[in-house]
């Protein structure tokens, strides 16, 4: 290799409410209701901006899981939540997840463009098709449509939203008559500082990746191994090229679950304490949902049976994420652990999303390695507890990356699209 990749990485934060571990709420830095406290959310925005981070991201779903032991199911509405944070910040990008299954394209396009105007061009929309009958029952439906139908609706939804954003700039009505939507009219919201919101896509199904290649400017991927990440990176960049776009037009940002400490031992201790304080049934429940099999029926001290690892019977009705399942099965096949070993090992290495437990210096090494390998354009970092984990990212990780020439010292762009475009170009492959 003579052409070492130059430029900077993209750093986003996946703000999983208080942190990705269920026991995050027990942090002494938090009040019992921090997840709805405006001061907490302002603090997230301000700390991210102190680290000149590119974007903060909110996952979402229109239903409530049991919040008895965990703040993760509790969700302020993302466009309102980030609209509030936008009022307290000036540069950081603000990405909201919104479902194409349970929204209307006119209403959502109007709301997102308004938020984009009000934030000075910092809004992104993470396009998802929602899973699960629990969500459907909040919208008068018995269950969600089949996966293929959801993605067809998503594809048409995005086209309508994009055309409406165009209409806001031109002042001309659109006349869309498709399979799912009929829209005659235009938006009366002014164009934003970046023109229109940035489109992002999450999810690793074939249809999801195809949609990303066609329209997305960023992808929140789920990657456990560097080799698989490189393959998926090239796949999606290739789809973009097939659609007449530059590979630089779509940025690939896998999630990375983080526990950081000033030594590796301290980081592991932090992670262990947080896991021990959380409900034991969680890891089994999570695994069950992710692989589409009741993991409580598995022998904890036996390896995974082959029929469990085989593809789910019907990808149309499987309720989990196909991308997560694929990365989990790949990881299990590599080391053939027992169920108990796998559940313990994923404390440190992650499951679905990759995990990282170590020091900021080691994390910088990891980011640099994957960046130069052509596996990523950046990471969407998911701290175990945001209240102190985000400060370590802003005040310790970012300065290390800056010293290595991998990150900017000041914001040099003002919009989310500007931040993405200023990042390193795609390496040749």
């Amino acid at each position: 290799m003579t052409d070492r990749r130059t430029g900077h990485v993209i750093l986003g934060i996946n703000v999983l409410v208080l942190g990705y571990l269920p026991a995050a709420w027990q942090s002494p830095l938090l009040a019992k209701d921090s997840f709805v406290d405006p001061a907490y959310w302002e603090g997230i925005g301000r700390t991210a901006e102190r680290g000149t981070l590119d974007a903060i991201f909110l996952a979402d779903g229109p239903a409530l899981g049991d919040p008895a032991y965990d703040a993760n199911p509790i969700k302020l509405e993302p466009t309102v939540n980030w609209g509030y944070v936008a009022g307290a910040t000036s540069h950081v990008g603000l990405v909201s997840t919104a479902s194409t299954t349970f929204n209307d394209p006119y209403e959502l396009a109007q709301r997102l463009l308004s938020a984009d105007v009000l934030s000075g061009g910092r809004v992104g929309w993470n396009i998802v098709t929602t899973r699960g009958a629990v969500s459907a029952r909040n919208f008068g439906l018995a269950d969600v449509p089949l996966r293929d139908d959801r993605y067809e609706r998503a594809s048409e939804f995005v086209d309508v939203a994009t055309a409406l954003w165009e209409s806001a700039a031109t002042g001309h009505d659109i006349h869309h008559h498709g399979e799912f939507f009929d829209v005659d009219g235009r938006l009366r919201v002014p164009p934003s500082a970046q023109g229109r919101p940035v489109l992002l896509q999450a999810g690793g199904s074939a249809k999801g990746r195809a949609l990303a290649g066609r329209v997305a400017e960023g992808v929140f991927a789920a990657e456990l191994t560097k080799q698989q990440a490189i393959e998926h990176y090239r796949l999606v960049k290739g789809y973009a090229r097939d659609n007449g776009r530059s590979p630089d037009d779509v940025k690939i940002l896998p999630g990375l679950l983080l526990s950081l400490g000033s030594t590796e031992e301290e980081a592991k201790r932090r992670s262990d304490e947080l896991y021990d304080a959380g409900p034991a049934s969680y890891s089994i429940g999570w695994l069950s949902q992710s692989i589409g099999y009741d993991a409580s029926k598995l022998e904890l001290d036996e390896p995974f049976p082959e029929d469990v690892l085989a593809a789910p019977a019907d990808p149309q009705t499987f309720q989990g994420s196909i991308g997560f399942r694929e990365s989990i099965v790949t990881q299990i096949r590599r080391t053939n652990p027992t169920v108990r070993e796998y559940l313990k090992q994923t404390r440190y290495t992650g499951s679905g999303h990759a995990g990282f437990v170590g020091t900021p210096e080691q994390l910088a090494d990891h980011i640099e390695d994957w960046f130069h390998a052509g596996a990523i354009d950046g990471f969407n970092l998911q701290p175990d507890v945001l209240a102190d984990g985000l400060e370590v990212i802003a005040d310790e990780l970012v300065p290390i990356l800056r010293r290595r020439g991998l990150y900017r010292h000041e914001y040099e762009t003002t919009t989310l699209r500007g931040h993405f475009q200023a990042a390193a170009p795609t390496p040749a492959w």
Partner: protein
Amino acid sequence: MTHLALGLAGPHLIELAGNPALLARWEALPLAYTVLGIDRIDGSGPSPVTLDSSAIGASLAARTRQARFLIVASPQRDQPYNLARRVASLGHLSRGRSGVLFGAADAYAVPEPGGLPLTAATAIDAARVVRALEQSWPYDSVIGDRETGILVQSDRIVHIDHDGVYSVAGPLNVPEPPTGASLIAWYPTGPDDVVADSAPIDLIVGPGTLLRPVAGQSLAEILTDIESRAFTPVPPGPLRAALGLSAPARAVGGRPAFAVPAPNPSL
């Protein structure tokens, strides 16, 4: 003298968001509340430009400390579950300074072929869903008990099982704001807008209760006009308290959404 409430149209929202001096003048007025985009539902719209009402509400919640506001909603191209989330989220982030004003139809929204009839009955049913969802999760069920590992007494969260014009199971995925369920107002525009069962409606808003700018009046002109008027100032505080409205009654006997959480044993 009575208190004063203000109705802003689309172009005023753009001026308010983009001009810090006007924002400071507006914030300093001891108004009862301001409607963010009255021209969506009062028959006067659409104007050439506007902003989504919840989007400008979220921004104003962060950029002001005292101003109270109603976002504007109609069932047209919206879903009550999504709307309830925005209303409840604003209630938290504004510390109780926000509420929602319903109308039957949205002058800015494009027609929705095959959609629900844009009548008072549809809008009021959406309002009922919003109120029930906001109350589906009592705020004081959030206990954060580190001893037992229980964050929320989730057995106190209930399904709403609403079966009217809309069919919505609930519960909402955010607790009720600590200041209580958001104020719900209704803007009637026709003789068929008579509401027989007004259970979720706290306030009726109409031309007689709201200062409406005349056509073409700029935000600066409106503010100058108000600054010269004599009216009863409304002191800072949450919207419901400012209007002297008591907390709405809470339905009893809802179907629990979750089992009683047991103290969480460590691994």
